């Protein structure tokens, strides 16, 4: 199972849990299973028009910036973070 680090301002959806374990081999499956376990995540994370992760949210999987949105692969021991997206100069 992948380890999901829940941002502090999303912990209202997990009853205060900071870290949860979720099954899934892609970000699509991770978010689907996250939504099933803790409803509300999909609305916070997914842009329903484009069916992609919202552009103002960055996903990091095992320390890398996931750049394929819902198609990014997730390993069985992966660590996933949701962060505010950043831009550079």
């Amino acid at each position, binding site marked *: 199972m992948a380890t999901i*680090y829940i*941002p*502090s*301002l*999303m912990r209202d959806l997990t009853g205060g849990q900071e870290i949860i374990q979720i099954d899934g081999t892609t970000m699509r499956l991770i978010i689907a299973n996250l939504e099933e376990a803790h409803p509300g995540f999909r*609305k*916070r*994370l997914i*842009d329903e*028009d484009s069916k992609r992760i*919202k*552009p*103002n*949210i960055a996903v*990091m999987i*095992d*320390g*890398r*910036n*996931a*750049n*394929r949105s819902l198609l990014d692969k997730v390993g069985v021991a992966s*660590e996933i*973070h*949701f*962060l*505010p*997206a*950043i*831009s*550079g*100069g």
Partner: protein
Amino acid sequence: MATNGYKVIGTRPIRHDGVDKVTGRAIYGADIQLTGLLYGAILRSPHPHARIKKIDTSRAEAHPGVRAVATAEDLPQTADKLQDLGETIVNLRDASNNVLAYGKVLYKGHAVAGVAATSLHVAQEALEQIDVEYEVLPHVTWVMDAMKDDAPILHEDMKTTSMGEETDKVSNIANHFQHKIGDPDKGFAEADVIVEREFTTQTVHQGYIEPHNATAKWNEEGQLTLWTSTQGAFMVRDQLIEILKIPVSKVKVVPLEIGGGFGGKISVYGDPVAAVLSKKTGHPVKITMTRDEVFEGTGPTPGSYIKVKMGVTNDGRITAATTYMAYEAGAYPGSPVGAGAGCIFTPYDISNAQIDGYDVCVNKPKTNAYRAPGATNAAFAAETVVDEICEKIGMDPLEFRLKNASTEGARRVDGPVHPRIGCIETTEAAKNCAHYNTSMEKSVDGKLRGRGVASGYWFNFNGGKSAISVSVNSDGTINMLEGSTDIGGSRASIAMQLAETIGLEATDINPQVVDTDSIGYTDVTGGSRTTFGTGYAAHATGLALIREMKERASKLWDVPADAIEFSDAVFFYKDDEEKRGTFKELAKQAGDTGGPIVAQVSTNPDGSGGGAYATHICDVEVDPDTGKVDVLRYTAVQDVGTAIHPSYVEGQMQGGVVQGIGWGLNEEYIYNDAGVMTNASFLDYRMPTTLDTPMIETILVEVPNVAHPYGVRGVGEVPIVPPPAALANAIYDATGQRLRDLPMSPPRVQAAMTKNGE
């Protein structure tokens, strides 16, 4: 010859575009001249906040030299939707309204209308004949004022969002986020010394030499061609198709040479206006900004308020840290507070910390990226607190940094774990360098001298989409097309990576930055990503050429391609010494082996690899009578990964430091009570010149990035992060006064010293 085991990487060849630039032959946007060209000008708001009640363009349109006038009514309605432009995220409705104001103007200088005329003078004269009726509204230009409940509201429909969840509160606070690790309260309880301080920084501009410009030609077939100065031609294309609602296949963006960008040339401003005016007139239209338009009408970096609290043990271990960061977004949401939050404590391994960030709208131009956006503000606050802590516990500031340094495996406050990084190596190099180990007199001729250090971090965007297209000439040289505009020597650094891969010299590669019809999609030149990302594509292109050359050689030598090897720039068949040749030798026979050799590669690396660390040392001299600060000596130490072209790495470091010195000592947007910037020219907006700065010494620490085949680590942004803090710490060492408000200009320094004297 390189000393790092490479043949090309690490050498210092003359840049491919250098001669054209130093002789004035390079073509910039303002040089574009087309048949039937019209000249555009922009009418801008005189008010920082006002409702537009009516725009009457009839008088201007009746002017004999005017060919067209455009307002927001000429732009299609766009959705309230975020769009990822690679390195910048924009709300399309906001972007459109920023190009030409709709309903309200939100800052002095906000574009209201555009005019196309037969000459620039006629266009400027016609602007005075556009009658705009405003209802002036109260304004707010400071972040902490804008956060108050009774502040004037810029966007009546904007509610604060927290990590994707919209609240019910209408406010100028567009977004609030939080990072938390461990238990900060417990950490502070374990501390022997706690320091809590407040800091402010002011709006500053990137200050690129070349103003924004755009020349648009929209022909009868609906094909729009735009020549412009930009960090990302594809980003301009993406914004145009969304703002103008036209198909992507109908837009070609031609990037010209760029006279500086530093993050400020990603968003579009006059580009869509020139396009609309061209469509209305059937002529090409060119718009070139003046300097005051650049200051007042484009995106500077934000003013900010930052509070930092840090607790340590007497032996120098950080037990906890918290920060409250409020950044000005300008007229529309989207400040770099998220990036600042991700950087503020990242030079340190801290187990208990909390970061709260606020993105706040004010009646100033919409902010844009500026070299490590958000991180300089943050480092000014955190690194000044660290310096004060070191003084209180009596520890050398670099020893303190080494004791708490981030390292591989340490967890950042925002969550992810560091891969291989060079934080410790950089700090050690600073501690051991000649500058740090040279003593200085504390007072000379009545002037006070002091030394300060500061560290900084920037993520680096180790990824993004890049495309490379190459064709091999009959002599084995290569024409290389790329989509990354060259803002800092990247033509050379990318060409050198291709040359290294296939065993050629850098001068054998002819790199060209081409338009959006001529190369695959390439993300913006920004985020310190280009030498990494497009270099990654260049390496992959080199591998593709090697594969193709083996196929060609197999036909010449009548051996299987997979039996041919490539090593030390030579292709060979190991069982026959006669069957060997260099890339150039084999290229000459391309006609006989299948025709011209070409390759196209696009890549999108996975974004792994670590960020960049820098530690700076700064000596200053303060005139106690005037408060003027002179920088006597400055050394920048940085983990640069593998330095592809060391001269350009040094140049990036020196340029970043000088910009940071300007930010720290003098630069600021000065607003009067009417919300109007009063120093919108280079006469009054004080940027440092060569007369103000010493030679910036550089120490390159090379910790290769494991995520790149040549170890490339972005180098362009982190050097601007430490300077204001290093200066503040040096000024304290000289004067005994802690300055916590930027800029540390002579009046501020003098006021602080006068207060000290009392």
